[in-house]
């Protein structure tokens, strides 16, 4: 056995792609080794005695200039194998003891002599068989043949050509390739590069000199001496520690935690150090959101706050180098200069924008395109307003307090910040800037906050807007977008979702789930369909009989709800399927049902109920196929015709339990309802134990089919238990 090391040396890989690529490469190499039987199936315990899991054998490393994989203890050669192949029937293969063409063909395919064919007896008769001996291949041979295919198969969000005649696409040009099995180079070629035992260090600190890797285990330390930290967690930790250490030089200061930014700078550096810079306190009069955005999004700086949590006039830059005091002064000066220019721009825009109020900007939205077939943001605002009014009306009927004037003001002005210079410069601050201007222009806190948080939540990790007005604005904006886009055929499909409609849908679901707004998912869909002029224009949509659009919108939201329950709330997929199959009212209701079902999902009673319901469905299906299922099934069970005690018992229990469960369900007491349903188990078990539903006697059969259909109907309104999968 020997260790395997693989390194792809590339021109700088985009930071956002590195983590996924590192993981994919490691898993591809690991799978390849497993598939090719180059990993011991029962690996020796690791030195500390803990068991070694096959799935984690491949260790991934990366920097902006490299992706690497290290696998310990790879077999140098596959074990020899013997496989018994079965061919044609003996009678076909040999006539009168002479081999037929069928025998010859089989022997050729198996790669054995005719004399090696033997007769085997199987339940189906006598067949020709051959034992094929396959010598194991050398690991190096397998790797040099298979690894390039794995490289080619790596998936990239965006890739490029670079060589003449364009033989391959990859994320960036490949510049070197290293592949070692033990101390030996694995002969390997990819993208015109032949593998060797040479890597390269930090562009500036180490320069062009090659770094020879003597053996795989020496990789990390060899790179370290060439100013490259290839281990991502180590690099991340060094950045965090340096951020801490450098911040401590400012009394009472803390750096603002920003995990995405830590990830980003981790993948932008090979040898990170941290620099503390400062800016003039006069810039602190600008809104904090603007300052932080400039620092984070444009300069990738960490913000620093004082002991009271207020923004301090400092920033932290993560450098990809290590320099002396003089160099540090130069770099600090350069970064401060850039930041000052950016802050100056922001201040100029901030002052400039104030000269025209948001209200006066409304008309300008006519010249800002929302989507080329859907018109301007002015049109969009009109639709948003109608949708928001209808949502507000629905909410008010449930006595939810609401400032109608503030809501309408917010909806009307929500998009006007798109015409400001500050948003043109910092597009990621849309909404936030509008909120700041609204506040500065005295439009009231409620309207300002609604405008500011209209795009919240931006992701699954975000919370939702705080106020009802903001929630309704957020719902109206997203719903109108989704419905309008669907109406002109721009719904997402597969991996294509250019208008981020799925994210908009996720936002709708999250707001509905966490706001407690008294709106069913269906009601929200209907309002959006009704208020959209585009869908209004199609007569069949306003009359509730529309076939296409209504259904595709409903299917889209059902899919988003399933995603929300699974991915955001973490409910098992079969629970989610069960809950959705039983119908959808409000989103919190679906959450409550999923919660209750998840709690009892693994219990024996529930699994038995689930198995029984599956069985009921199967029987009903078979009955339907055989034409036994007359109309009215399930509605009438003739109690006097139930002959077996077990079926009488089930009928009695079901009739008694149904109203109790229904009452609990109606008051959303799902855990108790499920508890009650679980008590049905003995009766159900006894029924299937003792009673034959598909009896030849038609009346009896019909009555039993009715009985099980009624049980299914009575107790499937919280969840369709037949969807539960026993693990």
């Amino acid at each position: 056995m020997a260790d395997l090391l693989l390194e792809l040396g590339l021109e700088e890989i985009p930071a956002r792609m590195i983590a996924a690529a590192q993981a994919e490469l490691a898993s591809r190499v690991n799978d390849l080794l497993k598939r090719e039987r180059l990993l011991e199936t029962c690996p020796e315990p690791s030195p500390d005695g803990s068991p070694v899991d096959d799935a984690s054998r491949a260790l991934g490393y990366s920097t902006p200039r490299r992706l690497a994989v290290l696998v310990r203890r790879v077999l140098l050669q596959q074990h020899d194998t013997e496989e018994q192949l079965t061919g044609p029937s003996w009678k076909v293969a040999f006539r009168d003891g002479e081999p037929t063409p069928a025998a010859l063909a089989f022997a050729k395919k198996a790669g054995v002599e005719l004399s090696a064919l033997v007769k085997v007896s199987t339940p189906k008769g006598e067949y020709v068989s051959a034992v094929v001996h396959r010598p194991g291949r050398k690991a190096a041979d397998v790797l040099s043949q298979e690894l390039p295919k794995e490289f080619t198969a790596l998936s990239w969000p965006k890739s490029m050509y670079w060589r003449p005649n364009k033989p391959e696409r990859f994320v960036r040009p490949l510049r070197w390739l290293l592949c070692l099995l033990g101390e030996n180079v694995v002969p390997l070629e990819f993208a015109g590069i032949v593998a060797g035992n040479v890597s390269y260090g930090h562009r500036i600190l180490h320069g062009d000199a090659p770094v020879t890797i003597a053996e795989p285990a020496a990789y990390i330390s060899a790179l370290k001496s060439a100013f490259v930290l290839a281990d991502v967690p180590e690099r991340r930790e060094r950045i965090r520690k340096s951020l801490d250490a450098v911040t401590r030089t400012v009394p009472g200061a803390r750096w603002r935690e920003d995990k995405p930014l830590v990830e980003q700078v981790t993948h932008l550096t090979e040898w990170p150090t941290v620099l503390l810079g400062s800016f003039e306190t006069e810039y602190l009069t600008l809104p904090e959101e603007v300052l932080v955005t400039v620092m984070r999004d444009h300069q990738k700086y960490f913000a620093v706050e004082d002991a009271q949590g207020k923004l301090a006039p400092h920033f932290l830059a993560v450098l990809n180098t290590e320099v002396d005091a003089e160099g540090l002064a130069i770099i600090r000066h350069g970064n401060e200069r850039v930041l000052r220019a950016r802050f100056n721009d922001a201040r100029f825009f901030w002052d400039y924008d104030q000269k025209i109020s948001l209200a006066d900007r409304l008309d300008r939205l006519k010249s800002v395109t929302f989507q080329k077939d859907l018109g301007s943001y002015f049109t969009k605002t009109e639709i948003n307003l109608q949708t928001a009014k209808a949502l507000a009306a629905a909410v008010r009927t449930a006595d939810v307090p609401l400032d109608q004037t503030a809501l309408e003001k917010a909806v009307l002005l929500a998009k006007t910040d798109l015409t400001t210079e500050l948003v043109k410069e910092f597009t990621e601050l849309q909404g936030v800037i509008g909120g700041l201007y609204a506040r500065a222009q005295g439009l009231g806190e409620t309207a300002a906050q609604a405008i500011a948080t209209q795009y919240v939540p931006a992701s699954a990790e975000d919370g939702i807007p705080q106020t009802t007005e903001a929630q309704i604005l957020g719902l109206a904006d997203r719903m109108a977008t989704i419905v309008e886009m669907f109406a002109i055929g721009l719904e997402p499909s597969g991996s294509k979702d250019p208008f981020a409609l799925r994210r908009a849908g996720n936002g709708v679901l999250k707001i509905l789930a966490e706001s407690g707004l008294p709106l069913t998912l269906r009601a929200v869909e209907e309002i959006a369909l009704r208020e959209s002029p585009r869908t209004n224009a199609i007569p069949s949509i306003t009359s509730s009989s529309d076939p296409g659009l209504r259904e595709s919108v409903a299917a889209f939201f059902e899919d988003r709800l399933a995603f929300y329950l699974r991915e955001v709330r973490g409910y098992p997929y079969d629970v989610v399927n069960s809950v959705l199959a039983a119908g959808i009212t409000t989103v919190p209701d679906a959450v409550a049902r999923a919660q209750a079902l998840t709690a009892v999902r693994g219990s024996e009673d529930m699994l038995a109920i689930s198995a029984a319901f599956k069985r009921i469905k199967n029987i009903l299906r078979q009955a339907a196929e055989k034409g036994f299922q007359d109309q009215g099934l399930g509605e009438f069970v003739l109690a006097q015709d139930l002959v077996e005690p077990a079926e009488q018992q089930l009928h009695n229990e079901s009739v008694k339990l149904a109203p109790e469960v229904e009452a609990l369900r109606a008051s959303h007491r799902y855990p108790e309802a499920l508890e009650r349903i679980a008590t049905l188990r003995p009766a159900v078990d006894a029924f299937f134990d003792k009673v034959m539903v598909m009896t030849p006697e038609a009346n009896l059969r019909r009555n039993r089919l009715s009985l099980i259909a009624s049980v299914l109907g009575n107790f499937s309104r919280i969840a369709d238990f037949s969807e539960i999968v026993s693990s």
Partner: protein
Amino acid sequence: MAIETRNALTFQELLFRLQKFWAERGCVLQQPYDVEVGAGTMSPETFLRVLDAKPFSVAYAQPSRRPADGRYGENPNRLFKHTQFQVILKPPPVNVLEIYLDSLAAIGINLRQHDLKFEEDNWEAPTLGAWGIGWQVMLDGLEITQFTYFQQCGGLDLDPICAEITYGLERIAAFLQDVDSIYEIVWARVPDRASAVHGKTANSIPHDVTYGQVRYLEEVQFSAYNFEYADIEKLWEHLRLYETECQELLAIAEGQPEASCRLPILPAYDLCLKCSHLFNLLDARGAISVTERVGIIARIRALAVGIAKAYARMQPAA
């Protein structure tokens, strides 16, 4: 700590150094193109040259006009017309990034005392039907260069792929000289004897000529023109005329059964550039509505794509 900038390159020395550096590495030095363009990429030395398979490397400074970016000379960091130094390497050498780093050393940047990062930035020009993959090169937090591997141009897939390196000269000069305003950049240092040549001994002390002295007036007047004085009706008329003539030239080219190097494709491209600049002027003037905008971009793109196709057809089959 004071930053040493006394020996920093002047604006024109910066240009000299880059020209010399790339000339020594096999680039043909071209002059700036003499039709208004928004970027060095739009010069035919890039747009058309990248379409064929012949190896060709070229470098040139390109004053680039962006009417909407004008600020009447009042903003220290923004210009109506800035200067790009454009390098096209077809095909690029395998160590193209290392060579690029050498070019930074050639303009006086000691990389051991700076922080350098290549950050993903993929360039795209919808009106040219062009896009590429690459980076913005960040030096101490400042974007100093755009590096792009061209993938498509004029709607055509490129082969070979070439590398485009675009230096922002004003930014780099302001950085090297450590000035906070572009207008304070020293464009030229007039030495003692240069004045003496004219016999004006009273004025013979060495002095600096700044970027502001050379270009300020141009920024002010063109901002005023672009935002206020440009005659919208006439701009539309010019656009229509240039577009029509360009289409006519393309029709002539397409009507020829045999590809010929006499076909007026380069003139057609000049007319297309005129259209692009007029579109930018109309845009700065606020004269383009939502619906019009999409349509005009599509019209100019159609010209660019038509020209690229005609140019490709003109090339001898490989």
